[in-house]
């Protein structure tokens, strides 16, 4: 089953209880990791353990349980800091997910920094969550949105991007890896060019962090967001990284408890970072379990994960390329773990329903990236997205399922 000798695929699969579930009498073949990844026992058990042995509200009580929960949550912050190689743990803000992280930056940074005529650069590859918050703040501030095009392979066009950049550019917000196509954006170059014009940069790292090691200092990125649930952690928790000086200059996003220094009806002063941006009781058990997910990934190692997933993507791409009536959507030179395709004259939803009957979970639809669909003039695609526990055998099951669809609709 193993695709490279050293990769402990059997042990890894045994770590994920849901992978032994049956769907309609068939073994589950889970190829929808781009939407959400499954959870290892370590993460599932950590959630129970928190509530069973070390739970109370954080940063408040003087009592034992509050201190335990606070220590565990702050330990998870350090794990997230090290995961991104942030300079300081204060730069790690816990949010509900990448969507909330982007909304926080668009709203808080945007209100403080955007003026009429300022420009925000996005790309065609963006998920709706990295489009709509910017449209909302642009409408409020009079800023203008510019969009970097992609080519027929789904490559981010650096030349076109360079033409859009100017001293009016105040924010470049692009994805690190496209959720619909798998394209890896040349973010180092994107950031270097933006900095030359004095623009801030936000990267949407949702589809990158499960596959690629990220170093925010080496990238020199200003803001980086990701969601925990795509990283084999719980849903409802994510991380916003921001450079300390930028975060300190930004007004709070939400008001409430936890984020204050002192409150009177005349004037309220705000807490220090990171708490200024963490109003209300956070998802304590989720944060701690996200730390466990990071530990789990580090235990396997990103080099091993990347090599395994690269093998799966190459194998699947070769298999599907050899089939008749298959169009692969997105053929960039550098891709991460995502294979989007269509079967000629068959709608993706019909494909999805038939594959589901073989126990295969794929995403069908526009993947919350309608501009990408419009670019390729399709309503939707079928997307197989791989995770660290998938196997070549599962790709073979997918290929058999596709053949069944082709027979039915022939």
């Amino acid at each position, binding site marked *: 089953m193993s695709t490279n000798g050293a990769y402990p695929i059997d042990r890894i699969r045994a770590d994920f209880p849901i992978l032994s579930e049956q769907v309609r009498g068939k073994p589950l073949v889970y190829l929808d990791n781009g939407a959400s990844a499954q959870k290892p026992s370590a993460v599932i058990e950590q959630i129970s353990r928190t509530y069973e042995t070390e739970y109370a509200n954080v940063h408040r009580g003087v009592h034992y349980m509050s201190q335990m929960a606070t220590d565990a949550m702050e330990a998870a912050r350090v794990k997230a800091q090290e995961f991104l190689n942030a300079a300081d743990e204060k730069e790690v803000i816990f949010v509900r997910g990448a969507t909330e992280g982007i909304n926080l930056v668009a709203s808080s940074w945007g209100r403080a920094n955007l003026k009429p005529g300022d420009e925000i650069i996005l790309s065609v590859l963006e998920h709706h969550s990295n489009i709509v918050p910017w449209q909302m703040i642009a409408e409020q501030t009079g800023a203008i949105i510019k969009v970097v095009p992609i080519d027929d392979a789904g490559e981010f066009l650096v030349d076109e991007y360079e033409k859009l950049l100017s001293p009016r550019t105040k924010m470049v917000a692009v994805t690190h890896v496209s959720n619909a196509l798998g394209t890896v954006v040349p973010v180092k170059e994107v950031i270097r060019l933006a900095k030359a014009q004095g623009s801030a940069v936000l990267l949407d790292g949702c589809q990158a962090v499960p596959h690629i090691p990220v170093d925010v200092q080496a990238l020199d990125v200003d803001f980086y967001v990701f969601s925990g649930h795509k990283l084999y952690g719980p849903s409802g928790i994510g991380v916003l990284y921001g450079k300390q000086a930028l975060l300190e200059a930004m007004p709070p996003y939400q008001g409430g408890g936890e984020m204050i220094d002192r409150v009177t009806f005349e004037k309220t002063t705000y807490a220090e970072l990171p708490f200024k941006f963490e109003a209300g009781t956070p998802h304590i058990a989720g944060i701690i379990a996200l730390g466990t997910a990071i530990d789990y990934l580090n235990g396997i190692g990103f080099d091993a994960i990347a090599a395994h997933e690269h093998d799966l993507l190459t194998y699947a791409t070769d298999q599907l390329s050899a089939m008749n009536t298959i169009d692969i959507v997105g053929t960039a030179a550098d891709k991460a773990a995502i294979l989007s395709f269509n079967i000629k004259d*068959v*709608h*993706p*939803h*019909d494909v999805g*329903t038939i594959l589901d009957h073989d126990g295969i979970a794929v995403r069908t*639809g526009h993947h919350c990236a309608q501009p990408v669909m419009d670019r390729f003039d399709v*309503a*939707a695609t079928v997307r197989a997205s791989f995770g660290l526990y998938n196997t070549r055998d599962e790709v073979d099951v997918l290929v058999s399922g596709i053949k069944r669809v082709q027979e*039915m609709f022939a």
Partner: protein
Amino acid sequence: MSTDLRDLYQEIILEHSRKPKNAGVLEDPTAEAQGNNPLCGDRITVYVKLDGDRIEDARFDARGCAISVASASMMTESLKGKTLDEAEEAFGRFNTQMTGKEAPELAEDDELSALMGVRDFPTRIKCATLPWHTLRAALKGAGDTQITTE
């Protein structure tokens, strides 16, 4: 192939989706409406030409799955010659059959009964009902209208 999958993709449905009846734009319609399923990005436009309160012609233009195209094809076929009241009644019957808790009673000669396999696929029911909701919007608005299934 499992039985319920064959119930969903019956030959008559595949046939309607391969060669839909009444597909394409209707010139000078009395009424039209656009339907949209934001979940999957599918779109349909339904056109109706009325003669008094009777449906003289009905056509549709769709970008959708086999289920939604087959449903639109069968719907437009069944509508021709019906009065507005009869069309409203047909909408009500189809909608109840599709979404009701009880398994529907069906006339054997009712071609639409071929779509009842969709009942076992809750995520796909909207595919079958979108053309009918769009038709209803066209008839109610008797003009240019937009609806959505969400």
